[in-house]
């Protein structure tokens, strides 16, 4: 089926001559999954049945659910969404503050403070892609009884983009212009046609703070605001108390803007400790209802699950553990810079060597023996949402094939068994952060490579150094002064634009930009650059998805980037807890819809 056929069918659904169900069925027949099919429809302005992306909410009255207890092994320290760095803080402030819309786990937007999701059909999206108009929900009140209006939304934009405030969220707000249309409508305007418009006011970065409580603290005195630690939001739960780095308590908001919500009377989020004992507190002793981010060996989780009290939730997003083969030479200085883009890696410039390297990592073993359910093997770099998943890539583990390729390319084994050609030996420094599964992966890779005449020298750097932006330190991942390195990169939004810009040539990490460029792997391809630019202006969602799939195929088939395993988020919860989790939004993104089956 090609693009035209697809378009025709979508058109038939739009006109009503083909049912949504019929469309999904036909898509399934040609191998497209149901979520992908519904997304194609959603993108073409055909709204999915409302309860599709979010599970149904059964309770028929507000409250009465008792206490909900959540355990985070990392504690939140701050409750202002514009300041909090890291997931824990974003999740904690999300308990009180709401954005206009959040991301459901299937990669679609779910309206929260917006009356509806803007689309071309409802006039929310301008045809030239230069503005998006949000209609706000009416009758929403802040916890202190004041009305929520467009002024609050405008205020958040002004607050976040003000350099004196030094907000973490400023990146999403400083390049847009926000106009108040009326008390319940705002328009976000972009400088150029922007296919991905759902950034400002959406999800974690879009949490809205009240103007009437923050307006006196919208400058350099922002951190003095008492409301930074005593939030007043619009959400289903009201603030009770907060001890930074320890405990957060909330209670039911009797005036919440959705019927019958929330279900729980009180809410407690306890922070600190370690992941394993958090898993025990839920699945073994049932002291808590939910535990966040279970970075625990799958073996242990399976054993705890066997108690029958709790279960493990696996939500697949875009995070991926992958290996980068350095295209530049990290051992030689060019104009005073190691791994300069002006140099070429002596061995990895041969595509055959890269091909062999890609054949030498046994992803199956990684999945089975190291990561378990927390790391399914993958051949793609861009794995989610499903509409962006490339069907073209395959992975294979074959030492024999790697040997064949290297033999044919003229890399001959020396006396010590290591291959060499023209004085270049296949001996690589392979760096990653200190982390048990990563060291095990390194060992697996080294063993296989040895059998193909490649010697890997393993290096592991403490995470706080490896992932720091310290310009003076040579061991950071952004400097990449090694032949190959491995880490996990995360995809914070259900849109791949921000994710895939890590391979464009103008983002290359180098001395000139203090190694702050996003392109750490230093991958460069003219074709990639061109397609990425094209995608930035492409307003047709189907064509745009095809462009991203092409980008994925370019990086992966270059073998400079070797995807290993996907890293879904893993959490633990009691069997009777009905939660709403999303791969593209924080754990607490739809806390209003959590309930307990009795």
């Amino acid at each position: 089926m090609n693009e035209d056929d697809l378009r025709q069918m979508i058109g038939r659904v739009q006109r009503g001559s083909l049912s949504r169900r019929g469309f999904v069925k036909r898509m399934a027949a040609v191998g497209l999954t149901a979520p992908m099919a519904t997304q194609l429809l959603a993108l073409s302005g055909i709204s999915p049945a409302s309860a599709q992306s979010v599970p149904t909410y059964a309770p028929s009255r507000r409250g009465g659910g008792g206490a909900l207890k959540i355990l985070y092994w990392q504690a939140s320290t701050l409750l202002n969404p514009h300041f909090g760095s890291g997931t824990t803080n974003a999740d904690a402030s999300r308990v009180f503050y709401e954005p206009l819309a959040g991301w459901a786990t299937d990669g679609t937007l779910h309206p929260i403070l917006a009356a509806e999701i803007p689309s071309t059909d409802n006039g929310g999206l301008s045809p030239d892609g230069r503005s998006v108009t949000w209609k706000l929900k009416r009758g929403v009140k802040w916890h202190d009884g004041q009305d929520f209006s467009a002024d609050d939304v405008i205020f958040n934009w002004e607050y976040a983009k003000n350099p004196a405030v030094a907000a973490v969220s400023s990146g999403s707000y400083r390049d847009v212009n926000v106009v108040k249309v009326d008390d319940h409508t705002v328009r976000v305007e972009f400088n150029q046609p922007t296919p991905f418009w759902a950034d400002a006011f959406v999800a974690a970065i879009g949490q809205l703070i009240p103007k009437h409580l923050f307006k006196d603290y919208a400058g350099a005195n922002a951190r003095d605001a008492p409301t930074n630690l005593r939030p007043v939001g619009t959400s289903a739960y009201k603030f009770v108390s907060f001890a930074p780095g320890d405990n957060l308590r909330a209670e039911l908001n009797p005036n919440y803007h959705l019927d019958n919500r929330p279900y729980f009377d009180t809410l407690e989020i306890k922070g600190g400790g370690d992941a394993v004992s958090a898993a025990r507190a839920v699945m073994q002793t049932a002291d808590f209802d939910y535990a966040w981010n279970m970075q625990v060996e799958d073996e242990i989780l399976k054993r705890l699950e066997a108690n029958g009290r709790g279960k493990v939730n696996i939500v697949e997003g875009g995070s991926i553990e992958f290996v980068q083969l350095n295209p530049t030479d990290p051992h030689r200085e060019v104009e005073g810079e190691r791994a300069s883009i002006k140099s070429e890696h002596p061995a990895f410039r041969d595509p055959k060597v890269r091909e062999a390297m890609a054949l030498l990592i046994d992803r199956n073993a990684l999945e089975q023996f190291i990561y378990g359910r927390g790391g399914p093997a993958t051949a793609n770099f861009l794995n989610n949402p499903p509409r962006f998943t490339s069907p073209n890539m395959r992975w294979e583990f074959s030492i024999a094939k790697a040997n064949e390729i290297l033999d044919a390319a003229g890399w001959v084994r020396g006396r010590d068994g290591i291959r060499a050609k023209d004085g270049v030996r296949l001996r690589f420094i392979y760096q990653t952060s200190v982390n048990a599964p990563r060291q095990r992966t390194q060992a697996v890779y080294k063993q296989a490579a040895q059998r193909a005449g490649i010697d890997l020298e393993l290096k592991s750097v403490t995470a706080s150094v490896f992932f720091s932006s310290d310009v003076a330190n040579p061991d950071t991942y952004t400097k990449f002064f090694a032949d190959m390195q491995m880490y996990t990169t995360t995809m914070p939004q259900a849109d791949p634009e921000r994710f895939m810009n890590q391979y464009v040539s103008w983002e290359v990490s180098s001395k000139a930009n203090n190694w702050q460029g996003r392109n750490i792997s230093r991958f460069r391809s003219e074709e990639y650059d061109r397609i990425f630019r094209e995608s930035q202006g492409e307003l047709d969602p189907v064509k745009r998805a095809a462009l991203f799939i092409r980008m994925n195929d370019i990086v992966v088939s270059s073998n400079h980037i070797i995807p290993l395993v996907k890293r879904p988020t893993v959490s633990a919860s009691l069997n009777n807890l009905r939660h709403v989790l999303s791969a593209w939004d924080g754990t607490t993104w739809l806390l209003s819809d959590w309930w307990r089956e009795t």
Partner: protein
Amino acid sequence: MTNYLARRLLIAIPSLLGISVILFTILALAPGDPFEELATNPAIPPDVRAHLRASLGLDDPIHLRYWSWLTAMLRGEWGYSFISRIPVDQLILQRLPTTIAVIGLAQIVALCIALPVGVYAATRPYSVFDQVANTLAFIGFSLPTFFTGLLLILLFSIHLDWLPFVFRTDIEATGWRWWWEMLRQTIMPIMVLGLFQGAAWTRYVRAATLDVIRLDHVTTARAKGLPESRITILHVVRNAMIPVVTLVALQMPAVFGGAIVTEQIFRIPGIGSLLVTSILSNDTPVIMAVTFVFAILVIFFNLVADILYGWLDPRISYR
């Protein structure tokens, strides 16, 4: 005496300055910055991070940063936490009560074990009681607290399901129920720390008492026909306490500093866990404040120990 005190306090100033310089330099030289987590988040452009660093003054040279920290400290301003953006003193005060309660009680438990057991064992050296006490003391201080902590959790929380292992500051009950709940959740950490400390102190008390018990004045007292209990309490223990007092006094700063590992295991929101999380997130103002206050306390309790010495042993004079 006043002269002595004044001199000691004056000497304390350069040592505190030296300590603060060393602490500050080490923290400044340590890799990483408080915005590490932002670095791996593609939604946050690098220049936003650079701007945040600049706004907190992280890009200034070390000596300038140290100077501004020192002048602020002298004015009584402890600075703001980079991570939670609230004043450091507030952060510390929030956690101090829990730490003092848990660690303080643990020290009391330790003393209650160490004093009677140590003294009794010393009065009957190499008896069965002494052997058993010695063996237990050895076991007690050879087992690290993180290990005994986990053992207790496995036994009492997971297998027997008697005690909770997640410390909660917000127990809803009131009155005696509150005290009961509090006791249930603090008994494990208190015992872990108390038994460890107690084991070490028992050995010291025993050794100190053994030294004194052989001295001539004790023999004289016995010859006078004084009852054994009176001899032990008045003639032996008072003299044996001198080295023990130093030990206990030097342990007092720990009541403020918290127990880093134990607090982490039991999720006690104390100073120790504050220190660990701040170190992990490179929150310099908090680390500086906690370690600096700790240094002040160490110096202060050294002085206290020296003064107590004189009270216990009039032969020592202050010059």
